[in-house]
């Protein structure tokens, strides 16, 4: 056992240590006990995992990057409930797919999702639709744990579906079709075990977040600073730990006469990772009259990023806006996010 492996195993429970050195090279050593009394907010997780590159390819309009890390627990979300998904004994790694626009580098949360088939010698090893997820150091991606069939070369085929979110500005007419690509991934246990792994016994549970990872090849998802959003910034507001920035665009090529656009960008604290797959309602009042009261729909725009918006029949300079969260983001969460962003606040701008 090398020193790195030993350190990696230092935080494990007695039970898995008893399982012997063999167990140290598998996942069970990489999941320290969860923080007790987790805040209902973003918190510093028990540990940070590094990430290895599995491959990259263009798939239609999209670029896809595949990365991997140690298998880990995560939480799926239905409604306002997060359900923990435990690591299975057979899991070899956590496989992640990032999807972005090769022209702008913007990470695209495609609600239609991604399918990943893992094959070896023509045999299917795994075939499923990984969960849309947010993590503190990876931002938005699609991920799940996978049980591989030992070391060696795998063919990983990724299909990214066409977007049904509204695409505005330079994104109009793009990303409507599915794209597919296959990469070869040479899985080596030693490469996995050499990924960084750091525990935070002193600071875990604090209200903080890991830094977003900076990678050479793969962009991470980050919403613009509120002050950098196009249009008039109506304000920012904190919800169930997530931050809302509302902007009012009276001038945009996609608007008709007498129209403005309300854009609400929802992002995580600390890292400004956009939070997709929410149900938002919006009401716009101008000159004492309600000029809009309806759903805000998911959209992407090169300068606004992923957001929720509506075209409003008003050209008021600074309307007053109310945003109701009807359902929180239905994205799965890595550790440190699973207790955050589960509320349904109302906000005024």
């Amino acid at each position, binding site marked *: 056992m090398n020193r790195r492996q030993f350190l990696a195993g230092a935080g494990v429970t007695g039970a898995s240590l008893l399982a012997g050195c063999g167990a140290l090279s598998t996942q069970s050593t990489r999941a320290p006990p969860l923080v007790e009394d987790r805040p209902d907010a973003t918190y510093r997780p028990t540990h940070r995992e590094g990430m290895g590159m599995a491959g990259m390819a263009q798939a239609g309009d999209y670029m896809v990057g595949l990365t991997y890390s140690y298998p880990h627990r995560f939480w799926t979300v239905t409604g306002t409930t997060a359900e923990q998904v435990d690591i*299975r004994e057979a899991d070899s790694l956590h496989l992640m797919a990032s999807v972005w626009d090769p022209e702008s580098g913007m990470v695209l949360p495609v609600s239609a*999702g991604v399918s990943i088939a893992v094959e070896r010698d023509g045999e299917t090893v*795994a075939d*499923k639709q990984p969960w849309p997820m947010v993590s503190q150091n990876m931002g938005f991606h699609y991920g799940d744990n996978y049980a591989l069939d030992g070391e060696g070369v795998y063919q990983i085929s990724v299909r990214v*579906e066409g977007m049904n979110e509204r695409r505005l500005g330079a994104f109009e007419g793009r990303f409507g079709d599915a794209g597919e690509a296959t990469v070869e991934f040479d899985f080596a246990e030693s490469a996995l075990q050499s990924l960084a792994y750091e525990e935070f016994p002193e600071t875990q549970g604090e209200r903080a977040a890991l830094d977003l990872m900076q990678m050479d090849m793969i962009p991470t998802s980050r919403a613009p600073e509120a002050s950098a959003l196009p249009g008039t910034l109506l304000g920012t507001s904190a919800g169930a730990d997530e931050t809302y920035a509302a902007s009012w665009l009276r001038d945009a090529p996609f608007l008709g006469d007498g129209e403005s656009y309300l854009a609400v960008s929802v992002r995580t604290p600390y890292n400004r990772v956009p939070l997709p797959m929410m149900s938002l309602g919006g009401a716009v009042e101008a000159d004492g009259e309600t000029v809009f009261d309806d759903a805000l729909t998911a959209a992407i725009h090169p300068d606004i990023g992923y957001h929720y918006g509506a075209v409003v029949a008003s050209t008021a300079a600074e309307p007053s806006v109310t945003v109701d969260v009807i359902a929180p983001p239905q994205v799965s969460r890595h550790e440190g996010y699973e207790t955050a962003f589960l509320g349904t606040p109302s906000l005024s701008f």
Partner: protein
Amino acid sequence: MTGRGISRREFAKSAVAIGGVSALAACLDRSSGGTVPAGIDDPANLPDRQHAWDDALATDDAGNPQMPNHHVLLLLDYTGDGAPTEAHRTQVEAALRSLERAYEWSNEGLLFTLAYGPAYFDRFDSGPAGVDLPTPEALAPFEDPEPDTPDALLHLASDDERVVLEAEEALKGTTDTANDHEMDGSFDGVFETAARRTGFIGAGLPAENQDVDGIPDSEPVPEDAPLFMGFKSGFKRNQASEDRVTIEAGPFAGGSTAHLSFIRLQLQQWYEQDSRDQRVSKMFCPAHAAEGKVEGVGENLGTDSGIDECPEDVVESSRREGVVGHAQKLSGAREENSPRILRRDFDSTDGGEAGVHFLSLQQSIADFVETRRAMNGTDVSENSAVGQRVNNGILQYMRVERRGNYLLPPRSLRALPPADPTQ
């Protein structure tokens, strides 16, 4: 071991899936020997609808018709060029009538249908009179199915594995008798088999057959589940009636249309990551999960999935809940408060993969398209936190790999029908 190259274990799992004379012989050897009820002396007395199965099926305690346990689908190509010959017609009809004399028209005997695809009607000047029979196409933006283009589709169904195997061999002409009755003819020289698909439905069979790709090694399928996903379906009141799916007018009145898709299931996340409440939310609706409405596989639900108790406004409910149920979405495809399709689907282990042969009958293929549109939940996804597949019914766990459309003529026109029988 039977000494015929099929291990007992394989055999126990998949005699029907293996097929052929050896599987049949093994099946007959192994059978505990119950007799299969014989058919009718005069097949002319059988109902004019080939799809008149409900009266011939057993029912469960709640009164839902129960699909036969074992199924064989043969995708057939007509060997002739151009319009079929009278001799071939006579041969096909004789073969089918032989089966009707051999086996009781019931789940204990044999139920079958013979349907025809658009490729078959291409040999005539026009498509089937009065019936819109489109070539199959993708029915969701996120699917990319291969079209099935055989001339004909034969569906054999019985509770007895021996029966579907033997009827298949008798039709192919590899055996001269069926249920100890002489065959008066076979499909030999008329039809060639382009593809063979098999499956099963009924409590216990999915659990017995779960050692396949798409189902995790933890053997999660409940012992009493009639289908791989662990819940009962095909409730009487969630099905279109046979009347509702019957073509009313034109030369093919009394017939129906069939849509057959092959759907691959990927149930690792379903069973190992989703909680029971999540599964109930996604299969039925979130209200059913919150209220604990579904016990076990759902036998307690009676004759319907209780969908009237799920919120009717599917988009509004999805916006609030962040998840929408499969059954809940389908309630939007009703017409005059009746479902539009009659499901006759079953599970499959063909190719060693967990799958569903989703066979449905409807008056018009458009009824199927509309039902599938509701199931896609695209409106839900565009207007709520629900993803296009994540939290959107069961779409995350399935992939449609093949689709085919067929005309299921009335019994009187089942043998190589002309496109316009009035001419």
